């Protein structure tokens, strides 16, 4: 734990160094890079050792802390999240240095670096906190730092709106967390997690209330449908490296919270497992369908975070059902799949957001329908983005496949277990549906963004991003490939997390998910692809190769405007889901486009807010500002109180 504390201190120091040396940005950013990197390594090392089976002593701040001792600890669950925070945090911070460099003239860039350091430090503290108060403090610092980073480009109106929606949503979540800990502690003053765990198991409605409140509070942070409404707004408004960190890591704190709740709570009732499973299925399908309808690259990627949170929730739901119905194997596999998918999604989603950032940087637009053919201009960005796209779709031999395979195993074992839990087989079908739709969506993104021809003339010729912007992408893509290639190394660690969350229900069960033979498969596939490509290259040598225009079935003068757009590409699928996606189609003689609105935000919350405001203007009539009115009101209040006492039969 000392190393983790040192790491957090170094990261904060890095941020302070960037601000202190703001007048000399080159020196400040070099120092930032060194300190931040050292901090991340210092924190990640103990996380890795815990994931490989070691234990680390807790850190306790006892005498002067309010609400019980402040404990910080690192178990396998904390470790997988800590590793995610630090690895993705480092990639985003390094990218951010180069990404914001050209804005040094007109923006307080150093402050942004400090805020990012604070955000990463707060995330790290959130996952190692073992008492409610430090957890809530870290949670709130995280939320505020993220808000300030979202509104970095506050001169734009939509950024301010997104920031406002985000800050309201996150504070509703925080309030619910206060309620959660208050109900849980039940009036006792010791709020350390070990004391909370001692309250379990609960009798009556209290346990159910705790789990329901936890699901809403953490679901709000994770962005599960119907609590997703803030997510695409905020993630699209933030600068690329902040979007990457938020979509990759910050929303995962909701997942961490759910899993930590389960660790402390013990066995959940079946209804909770089914509810989580249903939320996962709905989030997964709606997330990817809404993503299909988006043509703003960052909003599209943000909706894919909703989808992937859905996949993670499917894992958690299967795990909870495994505990509830007494199938330890399903429990361990479900939680393990959820934990592994959390790490994997953080890696490929940040990769995709950073790649999208480079494209926006180079072209000045987020509308994918305006772009095209960027693979020729930006080969490095395109290749890494392609790896990220294949990974998020869950294609072998990349990391998304490995974690989805573990989740599938949990669901399929549920299907063949016997009893009510067999219904989890339907969730496996939903997962297949999500995967196939995600493939459609990322074919659209990669195809329209990087392949083909540009669909509009851009004001400036797009150029490949500078090496400092590509290096983080290559590192993240390499991580996606590495995890995909060696499930035998990562799956046992994930299973360790799964056993921890399953707790007593796992009963020390040794789970073999078949990662060894799976590794033979993934490595074999990768080698076969390389050999196939090699054979193709060797056999193709010396053959005649002609270059020509694309064959357009005889049409002599194809123009870029005829190129297939993202709207057209997604149209057949969206027409199937038309009734519940809020997608509108605009057709004219020469153009076709689709437009998506969010049913929860635009359909429910905004009207509700308007209604509240109208009601408020009516109430405002009372506040006229004249002293006589207030005196009248005071008098009326006294009379009403007296009347109440008389009616209630009690004399003053």
């Amino acid at each position, binding site marked *: 734990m000392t190393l983790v504390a040192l790491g957090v201190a170094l990261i904060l120091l890095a941020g302070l160094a960037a601000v202190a040396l703001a007048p000399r940005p080159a020196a400040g950013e070099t120092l930032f890079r060194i300190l931040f990197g050292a901090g991340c390594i210092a924190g990640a090392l103990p996380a890795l050792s815990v994931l490989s089976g070691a234990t680390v002593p807790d850190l306790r701040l006892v005498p002067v802390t309010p609400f019980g001792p402040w404990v910080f600890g690192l178990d396998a669950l904390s470790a997988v999240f800590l590793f995610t925070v630090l690895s993705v945090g480092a990639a985003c911070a390094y990218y951010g240095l180069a990404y914001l460099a050209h804005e040094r003239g007109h923006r307080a860039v150093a402050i942004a670096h400090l805020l990012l350091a604070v955000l990463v430090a707060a995330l790290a503290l959130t996952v190692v906190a073992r008492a409610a108060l430090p957890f809530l403090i870290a949670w709130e610092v995280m939320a505020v730092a993220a808000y300030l980073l979202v509104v970095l480009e506050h001169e734009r109106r939509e950024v301010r709106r997104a920031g406002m929606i985000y800050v309201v949503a996150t504070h509703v979540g925080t309030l619910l967390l206060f309620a959660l800990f208050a109900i849980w502690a039940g009036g006792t003053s010791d709020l350390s997690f070990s004391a909370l765990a001692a309250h379990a198991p609960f009798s009556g409605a209290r346990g159910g209330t705790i789990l329901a409140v936890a699901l809403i509070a953490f679901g709000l942070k994770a962005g599960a449908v119907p609590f997703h409404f803030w997510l695409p707004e905020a993630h699209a408004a933030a600068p690329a490296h902040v979007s990457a960190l938020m979509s990759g890591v910050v929303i995962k704190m909701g997942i961490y919270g759910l899993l930590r709740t389960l660790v402390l709570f013990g066995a959940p009732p079946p209804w909770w497992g089914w509810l989580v499973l249903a939320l996962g299925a709905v989030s997964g399908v709606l997330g990817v369908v809404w993503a299909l309808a988006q043509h703003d690259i960052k909003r599209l990627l943000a909706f894919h975070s909703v989808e992937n949170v859905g996949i993670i929730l499917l894992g958690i739901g299967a795990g909870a059902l495994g505990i509830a119905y007494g199938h330890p194997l399903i429990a361990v596999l479900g939680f393990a799949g959820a934990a592994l998918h959390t790490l994997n999604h953080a890696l490929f989603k940040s990769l995709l957001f950073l790649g999208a950032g480079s494209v926006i940087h180079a072209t000045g637009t987020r509308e994918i329908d305006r772009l*095209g*053919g960027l*693979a020729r201009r930006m080969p490095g960005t395109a290749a890494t983005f*392609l790896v990220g796209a*294949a990974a998020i779709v869950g294609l072998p031999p990349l990391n998304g*496949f490995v974690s989805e*395979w573990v989740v*599938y195993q949990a669901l*399929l*074992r549920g*299907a*063949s277990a*016997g009893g009510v839990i*067999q219904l989890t*087989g339907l969730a*496996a*079908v*939903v997962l*297949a549906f999500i*995967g*196939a*739709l995600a*493939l459609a969506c990322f*074919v659209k993104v*990669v*195809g329209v963004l990087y*392949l*083909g021809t540009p669909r509009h003339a851009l004001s400036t010729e797009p150029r490949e991003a500078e090496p400092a912007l590509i290096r983080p992408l290559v590192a993240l893509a390499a991580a996606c490939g590495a995890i995909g290639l060696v499930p035998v190394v990562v799956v046992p660690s994930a299973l360790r997390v799964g056993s921890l969350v399953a707790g007593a229900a796992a009963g020390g069960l040794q789970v073999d*998910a*078949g990662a*060894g*033979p*799976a590794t033979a*498969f993934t490595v*074999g*596939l990768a080698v*076969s692809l390389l050999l*196939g*490509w090699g054979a*193709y290259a060797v*056999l*193709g040598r010396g*053959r005649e*190769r*002609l*270059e*020509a*225009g*694309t*064959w*357009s*079935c005889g049409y002599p003068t*194809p123009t870029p405007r005829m*190129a*297939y757009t993202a709207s*057209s*590409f997604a149209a*057949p*699928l969206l*027409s199937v889901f038309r009734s519940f996606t809020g997608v509108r189609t605009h057709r004219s003689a020469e153009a076709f486009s689709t437009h998506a609105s969010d049913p929860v935000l635009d359909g429910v919350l905004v009207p509700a807010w308007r209604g509240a405001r109208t009601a408020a203007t009516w109430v405002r009539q009372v506040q006229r500002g004249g002293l006589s009115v207030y005196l009248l009101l005071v008098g009326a209040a006294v009379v009403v109180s007296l009347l109440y006492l008389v009616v209630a039969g009690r004399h003053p």
Partner: protein
Amino acid sequence: MSGSELIALGILGVVAPALPGIAGKTKSLLTGRRGPPVLQLYADLRKLLGKGAVYSRTTTWVFRAAPVVVLVTLFVAALLLPVDGREAPARFTGDLVAFAGLLALGRFALVLAGLDTGSSFEGLGASREVTIASFAEPALLLCFIALVLVTGDLSLSGMLGSPLAAAWPRAGASLSLVGISLFVLLLAENSRVPVDDPATHLELTMIHEVIVLDHSGPDLALILYGSAFKLTLFGVLVLGVFVPRAGLSTPAALALLVAGLGVVAVAVGVVESAMARLRLVRVPQLLVGAGALALFATILQLA
């Protein structure tokens, strides 16, 4: 890996290009034409492999990599299937997910290659291909779940190997439904009537053929061979359910495999002559129907 598995895979590789030929010949004979020879595709492949290739100036390495990725993923997928009816060369828990993943990887590469040309025709085909696949993949998984329930095994080798043969007497109804569902998926995944018409002459109505419009020479040969091989793989799936061969001697099992693949190809030809292509908006309904059959099969197995 035993000898019979290797021989079975070899047979699969050799007979694959005959399957589209048999289907086409059946269709021709049923409609009163003579049609091209059954072995036409072998001649086409030899001709294409001897040629050079023309590449569009718009394309990148993605376009060139696609044929290789398609073929390699199909070959690796074949390793997961018990082609000889007993044991697959490679198996692991949950490899049915890997099988679906490999098909998806091949599709991902092929569809991106289509979009790489920048032509609207390829875009059209790509869009339709992923739309149909979005409904075919859950249906395929439902079939697999039904088989998991019937056999209690989480790998394709067990689901289609000897445990399945033992399950026929008690789960015949479920297995028949799964087999029919798999046959519909065979038609959909391999772009046959009623989902796609391989013999159509108008690019606007095509799905698979229009994605590979710009491929030529050896690239086209790889893709044509890949399509035939994919049809054969699905044929093996359907045969695995309907004709379990676990208890037979190796020569008998292999002979039954070849004969069975021929019957599947004839069945494809008969379907093609008996009905017309569905409207594109009806295709998801067909696939949901196939999924519903597999769902019934699953429900029958719920204890």
